[in-house]
């Protein structure tokens, strides 16, 4: 009797397992929606720019069960691993493991950002506490000089080199003239906080700046203290710097009203946000802003519904 009971149990379990398998495996999978953590500038920009019927994603309720990742790499890795995934990252960080969608028929590239046809473009903003003046006059000497470098044509050259978009083709930028006098001490630091999307670019800008002023004024890499924990972190840091005057915040999206009220800012570059899907996803190659809105709010749950729309 005992053996028969054991056998029955085993069979029952096998049947259950099979049933689960069949149930789960059949049918088209829902879209797996991926976003960034709430402090991310990229997410903030995305949610501002994607809207339907006058409502931005920022004000809307996002689909339940949305998956939030805390880095660009994680987003790309997830999209690359999940067949029905969709996500958004800075265009500059896309690699061949994912497929970039066209946005309303427009290819995602620098040229289209410059001519304005690619809609998901966001600014790279540099900001500091407004206590230190509109042009950063009261910032520390080194910080002020670095800010003026960022506004120069030299900086724009680097930005284009790195694949980002210069602010405006019609703007003219003066060549950089340093305002430093004498040598900079080792304790004199420029504190940079903010967007992870701007991390690499800022490295390059720092390096270029040092190559210009380094030998004459003793500026070295150790004079820069940069930590990237997200655009909001950068804005918070800049807001908190009320006395020293050496904090520069980086934001990869437009500043919100609360931040803008306390900070001076300027846009140093522009960047396209690429919408990515899994490489093997052949149900979609082009997407509209409204469709993005629907997907991210859960109104559309399967890619096949997009085909139906058309």
């Amino acid at each position, binding site marked *: 009797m005992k053996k028969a009971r054991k056998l029955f149990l085993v069979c029952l379990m096998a049947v259950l397992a099979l049933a689960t398998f069949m149930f789960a*495996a059949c049918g088209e*999978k829902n879209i797996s929606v991926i976003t960034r953590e709430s402090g991310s500038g990229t997410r903030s920009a995305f949610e501002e720019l994607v809207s339907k019927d006058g409502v931005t994603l920022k004000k809307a309720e996002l689909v339940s069960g*949305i998956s939030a990742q805390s880095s660009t790499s994680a987003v790309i890795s*997830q999209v690359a*691993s999940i067949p029905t995934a969709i996500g958004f990252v800075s265009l500059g960080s896309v690699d061949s493991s994912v497929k970039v969608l066209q946005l309303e028929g427009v290819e995602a590239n620098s040229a289209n950002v410059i001519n304005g046809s690619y809609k998901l473009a966001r600014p790279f903003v540099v900001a500091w506490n407004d206590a230190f003046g509109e042009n950063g006059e009261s910032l520390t000497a080194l910080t002020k000089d670095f800010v003026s470098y960022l506004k120069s044509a030299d900086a724009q050259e680097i930005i284009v080199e790195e694949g980002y978009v210069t602010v405006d083709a019609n703007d003219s930028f003066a060549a950089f003239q340093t305002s430093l006098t004498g040598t900079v001490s080792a304790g004199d630091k420029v504190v940079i906080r903010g967007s992870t999307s701007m991390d690499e670019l800022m490295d390059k800008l720092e390096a270029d700046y040092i190559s210009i002023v380094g030998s004459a004024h003793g500026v070295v890499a150790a004079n820069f203290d940069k930590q*990237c924990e997200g655009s909001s972190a950068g804005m918070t840091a800049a807001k908190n710097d009320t006395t020293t005057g050496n904090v520069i915040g980086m934001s990869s999206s437009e500043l919100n009203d609360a931040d803008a009220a306390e900070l001076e800012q300027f846009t140093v570059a522009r960047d396209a946000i690429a919408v990515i899907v899994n490489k093997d996803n052949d149900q979609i190659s082009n997407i509209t802003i409204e469709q993005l809105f629907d997907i991210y709010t859960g109104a559309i749950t399967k890619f096949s519904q997009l085909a139906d729309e058309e």
Partner: protein
Amino acid sequence: MNRSRAKEKAGKAVFAGTAAICIIAVVVIFAFILIRSIPTISKIGFFDFLFGSTWAPDRNDVFTEALAGQYGVLTMIVGTLFATVGALAVGGILGYFTAVYLAFFCKGKIKKVFNTVVNLLAGIPSVIYGFFGIKALMPLFGWMSPNGNASGLFLVSLVLGIMIMPTVVALSKTSLEAVPRSYYEGALALGATHEQAVFKTMVPAAKSGITASLILGIGRALGETMAVVMLAGNATEIPTGLFQSFRTLTANIVLEMGYAGEVQMGALFATGLVLLIFIAIINFLMGLVRSDKNSDKAKIKKEWLGALKNKINFSKVGKVVSWIAAIFGGLFLVAIIVYILIMGLPHISWNLLFGEFELGSDSVTIFPSIVATFMTVVVSLIIAIPLGVAAAIFLNEYTKKGNKLITMVRSAVDILSGVPSIVYGLFGAATFVLLFGGSSSILAGSLTISIMLLPTVIRSTEESLKSVPDAFREGSLALGAGKLRTIFKVVLPSAMPGIISAVILSIGRVVSESAPFMYTMGTSLGAMPTGYLSSSTTLAVALYALSRENFHTNEAYATACVLIIIVLALNLLAEFVGKKLQKKLSGDSSNGIRTKHKRKAR
């Protein structure tokens, strides 16, 4: 002779002092979190905070005005609970049975290799587990989820379980191997098979060590962040299925800490507080379970279990399960290591390993991080091992069984082990960093992680000390030796295996942690550190930094390879040193006494 009494008193005071440090550490950390959370909790309301099911903070909220955001952590409490239970189920069971397998069903070379591999697992950073989970496991289990995204409880439990496995295995194995052989032989002499002797006598005898390992494992699971963030989905909803996006308390802290406004920041600290309370409760419950042995309910349960055991021939099943657990665990380890090697080995270059740092250059060098990691390992071991061993000595050799002080210290130790690593990081930033002039430094990071290592060192050493037979102590005392001499000459040498195990686990911890260092040592790769006051990054933090923006993924994997190789090397070194020490102390080498003596006799 008063000198020796004075020495004994001094010795006792020193040991008691080190044990007290643990209590002090817990109290200070607790106070730190409490102070940062109280303003927020009073503003939000304790019950609204604990039982509110909406988490939607507004980083512009301030204490002086009405709140625009919502701060309820119920969804995350549930998420953490489920994830911990899941992790314990996977890691506890796998770890327990693998330990049994290693201790009793495995021999010779295989055992050595397996052991080394399990220890290696302890050194793999969380971020790597996260990427492994995304790249290798998600495609594997995606079909089970309604949207093809395997994020959720299942994946988190699986990966967390594997992450806590080394801790559980190491400690359980030490306890199992310390059970006197006479128990085993006694069982065999009664006609028991090998498996029956193992499961019916040896394993129950090691219960205290196994429970200790499970508690440490829970602590680790509760405090884990990076891998969870990458695999849980992080939606602020209560998980109602194995593949639904959910968020844990620790993930919440890490995701939002960087940019939180003042009210939000306080709420995040309060989240840390909730975690601490959790682990205190779990410890309390575990303690209850242990002392429940003699109640009537327990007796009935025991009988019923006993009858059941006889019916299923538990021991045979146990043996099979041990084998399966070991194989499964082994496969997983091998998979992760192979994955890292495949992705990273091709990208290891001379410049990566030994190049000089250049700002803005596209080529990456981790040489400074390698150096910083070694510096950190050395200092933290120098601090944590003696402190931890001394505290364990106090707990085991100096206090009477029911002493209130020991229960306090033990609870303190268990709580310390459950503090999330990110809380340690914040604590370190608020204390050690400020202490050294307000900027990050290797020293601040080392001090921070030393505190983190204490629970493991203490527990492991304690279990080892417990296993030293009292007969040795009595023999030594009867020969006129004082307590100090007995401890240093007889007890400690016998307890060496547990201490070595603690060293190995500690090395793994130092090398694999990132959160404690991110806030105390620095997060950007930079130039070679010039001393302990330089800021730098350890390899794990460098790995994290390299992997974030997708520009240096190859270098990130290469760094992971280097990391594993270093952990392996350090572990092997520790084992080697340990064996040599033991040989020297237990006199299994025939040294020159014989010849010396022959000469003398003539």
